[in-house]
């Protein structure tokens, strides 16, 4: 608040000095948070030009190797193709589903909208295992069905190809596009559209001249987000991608840092490339969203907006949309569940005699790593989500209500992790803590730090938008009624923000639980978490156990969502 700011300088003022304490503490926490999110990017850069750990002589060896090494060059090209393809697919699916479900008379539009965002709850690993089960050239269900129909061995679809990778990533990213775009479509101001119609615009002209141009910032923001996410995606390139020998930057970073001979310098250089691309994208994404401010339409309640009649295409389009929506959530979950009950996984194994519960018994009770890693995962997810929400409340208060002197700068810094792929963030965090003797390296705390660093930007967006919704007068009224700042925060702000805080907690919990890329470089055998265990089993190639294991991850993530979801609000608009 301004009163606190004005107090600095001049005479020491007893009453204000007290207020200054609040301010000082908030500023300090904000400054620490800003350092927390910005040092990994700097260290990645430093590490990529150091021969050994940071502090050793500088060199351009690694940057040169980025282009000199043929494997690295290949990865660059692959990453570019993969990013372009999956971004395009995600945009087409996300925007298409958003438009269909909000602006047309498609039957079951609401259900379609729900199905479109459902995949956010499904760990990407389920998507991977599910699509392997569906589209493996040998044992994939689709190919088995095709062979049976054709009477000879037919490979209709092959997941172990670039297009297979793009397909999975596109499906995985489409819900994020949907979320960013659908709200805009729904909240159109009907009077603007009516004005266009009255001025003589046909429906198509309305779409071309009013509706889509108004969504341009949201579309651009969605595009940049999926570019960052796909370029830095780890899970799909390092599972199916490595199996298909399609090398990409994130999977190479992993290999260069953890397999013999380790070349952490090259890994840092490759990370640096991703960080630079990511930060540029995020910079433009923020700008697009900010400029979107002038497109923000208040008062749009979605009533009376033009619904585009699809005519004869109504049912065909609905079927197609439903199919796509199913491809990214229910279909993989179903095929993974099927796989989980099979004694082994091969084309000729699809028989009733091969059904078994053995995989469940083995994974849940006999596999030694499961329960320790589940404990670690749950502890980290609960602690991480709680810390994220807490920190986000403090930071949002600092940015929005206190408007401290550095608020603008720190607020800007807090989006940095959005532009840094998990694996690169891991490289950055590792580069620092490996140098600190007796530090948190090798403990659970370094994982916690990584989780909080990576997920704080989204938490701030969530909490910030909830705080923005609370009218200043509600707090002022409480102060005048005799409650102090902290009392007001506790009695007025926290209860009013509760649904958003719960929503934020649940989302962070789910995401932390499934996170692999972030911690793949930071864990050690004593701090292994469930999601990393998946990579181990993937390596062993025993799919039915993998299926059980990934279902366990899905269930652990879903339990709190099902329990507390009804108290939560999930939109951070």
């Amino acid at each position, binding site marked *: 608040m301004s009163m606190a700011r004005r107090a600095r300088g001049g005479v020491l003022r007893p009453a204000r000095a007290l207020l200054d304490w609040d301010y000082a503490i908030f500023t300090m926490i904000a400054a620490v948070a800003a350092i927390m999110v910005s040092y990994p990017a700097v260290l990645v850069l430093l590490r990529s030009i150091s021969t050994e750990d940071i502090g050793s002589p500088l060199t351009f060896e690694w940057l040169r190797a980025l282009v000199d090494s043929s494997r690295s060059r290949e990865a660059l090209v692959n990453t570019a193709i993969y990013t372009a393809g999956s971004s395009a697919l995600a945009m087409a699916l996300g925007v298409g589903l958003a438009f269909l479900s909000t602006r047309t008379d498609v039957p079951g539009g609401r259900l379609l909208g729900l199905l479109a965002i459902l995949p956010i709850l499904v760990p990407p690993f389920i998507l991977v295992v599910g699509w392997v089960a569906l589209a493996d050239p040998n044992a994939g269900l689709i190919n088995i069905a095709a062979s049976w129909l054709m009477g000879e061995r037919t490979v209709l679809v092959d997941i172990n190809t670039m297009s297979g990778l793009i397909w999975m990533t596109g499906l995985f990213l489409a819900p994020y596009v949907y979320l960013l775009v659908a709200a805009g479509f729904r909240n159109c101001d009907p009077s603007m559209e009516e004005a266009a119609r009255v001025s003589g615009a046909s429906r198509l002209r309305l779409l071309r001249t009013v509706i889509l141009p108004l969504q341009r910032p949201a579309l651009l923001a969605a595009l940049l987000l999926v570019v960052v996410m796909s370029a830095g995606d780890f899970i799909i390139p390092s599972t199916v991608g490595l199996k298909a020998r399609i090398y990409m930057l994130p999977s190479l970073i992993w290999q260069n840092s953890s397999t013999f001979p380790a070349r952490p310098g090259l890994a840092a250089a490759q990370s640096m490339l991703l960080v630079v691309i990511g930060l540029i994208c995020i910079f433009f994404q923020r700008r697009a969203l900010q400029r979107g401010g002038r497109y923000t339409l208040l008062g749009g309640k979605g009533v009376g907006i033009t619904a585009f009649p699809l005519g004869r295409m109504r049912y065909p389009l609905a079927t197609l949309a439903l199919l796509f929506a199913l491809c990214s959530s229910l279909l993989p979950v179903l095929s993974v569940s099927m796989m989980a009950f099979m004694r082994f996984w091969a084309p000729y194994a699809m028989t009733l005699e091969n059904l078994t519960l053995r995989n469940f018994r083995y994974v849940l009770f006999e596999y030694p790593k499961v329960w320790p890693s589940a404990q670690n995962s749950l502890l980290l997810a609960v602690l991480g989500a709680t810390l994220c929400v807490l920190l986000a409340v403090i930071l949002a208060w600092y940015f929005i209500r206190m408007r401290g002197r550095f608020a603008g700068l720190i607020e800007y810094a807090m989006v940095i992790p959005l532009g840094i792929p998990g694996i690169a963030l891991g490289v950055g965090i590792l580069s620092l803590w490996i140098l600190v003797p007796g530090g948190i390296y090798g403990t659970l705390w370094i994982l916690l730090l990584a989780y909080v660093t990576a997920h704080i930007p989204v938490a701030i967006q969530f909490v910030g938008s909830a705080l923005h919704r609370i009218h200043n007068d509600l707090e002022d009224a409480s*102060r005048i*009624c005799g409650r102090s700042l902290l009392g007001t925060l506790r009695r007025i702000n926290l209860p009013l923000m509760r649904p958003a805080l719960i929503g934020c907690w649940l989302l962070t919990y789910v995401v932390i639980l499934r996170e692999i890329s972030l911690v793949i470089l930071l864990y050690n055998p004593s701090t292994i978490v469930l999601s990393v265990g998946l990579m181990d089993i993937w390596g062993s190639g025993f799919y039915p156990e993998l299926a059980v294991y990934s279902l366990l991850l899905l269930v652990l993530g879903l339990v709190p969502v099902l329990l507390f979801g009804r108290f939560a609000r999930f939109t951070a608009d």
Partner: protein
Amino acid sequence: MVDWQRTVAGDTDASETSSVSVTGLSKAYGPDGALRALDDFTLEFPAGQCTVLLGPSGCGKTTVLRSIAGLITPDSGRITIGATTAFDAASGKYDPPEKRRLGMVFQSYALWPHLSVAENIGYPLAATGMPKAIIRSKVEAMLDWVGLSGMGGRFVHELSGGQQQRVSLGRAVVGNPRAILFDEPLSNLDARLRERMRIELLGLRQRTPFTSIYVTHDQLEAMTLGDKIVVMRAGKIEQVGTPEDVYKRPRTRFAADFMGIPNLIEGSIRAIQPDGFIVDTVLGTLLTRGWRDDWNIGERCTVALRPTLITFSADRQGEAPSGRVIRSVFQGTSTIHMIDVAGTAITLESFSDERHADGATVAVGPINGAVFALLAD
């Protein structure tokens, strides 16, 4: 009806209604304080009275109110509530809002949606740590006082706008505050409800006088509610006076314009009399009174003419000034006539059915015994 101060505060606890005094308050915003929201503002708000700060948006009236509440820290000046100094820039004394024991009614009502009506009203009492049983009985009395008996269990969204405003008033009053601040409390209501709430508020204040500081841009609200009206402009006081003073004799062009007088006409002082000044204008000689006494004969001046104090007639006799009707607008109880008198457009309001065609020539003059406002600038 119940007297809230007795039921709410208890007989032992005397009314705490206090005077508020503001001295030399300044507040500037923007780089290098380029925007002066408040410029050396000094005013006494007497105990038990309603002082209305009136002015257009951006005149600084809300800044005064929020400074008194402690929601804004002024750059300089002193604020005293009762016997205690709540803010003094010179000594660095600053009481946060929660220490000032005030009540406030917001334009947005600022009722908390997660609390019931009773919890909203009881909030200031709960903040002092008062036992629940006592809070309950005081809240009951308050609900009764604002006419919402039996509605304590409801939530805010279940109430109408007027009812919400009453809850907001109840919450402001219940803690027996030293003064109650009103920040345009009626401007979110529709016209009819606004009128009813205005009369109700007046009734409540008549039963139990409390110190109120009322901010509005609506001159009708200011007239009905204020014991004293303060017209503000650009962070400074333009005129202070009773509603009658401000209405009949605005001090400046700005005040006259803001009080809804369309006719500001030029003239010159013709004679100085014990009961005012005689001024020569296009409408002939007019008897005027103002707030400035050092006028010289022949000096140029401006007179504000209320449209209701001017009349016209078809038969032109003697040397009465004449004018040409530009147009007449019927608006219900009265009719507005625009008349061109020797190149000056005059607006007059008549309650008779007399009509003249556009372009007709008529005689124009003051009604009998009219005294006009002689402006100081």
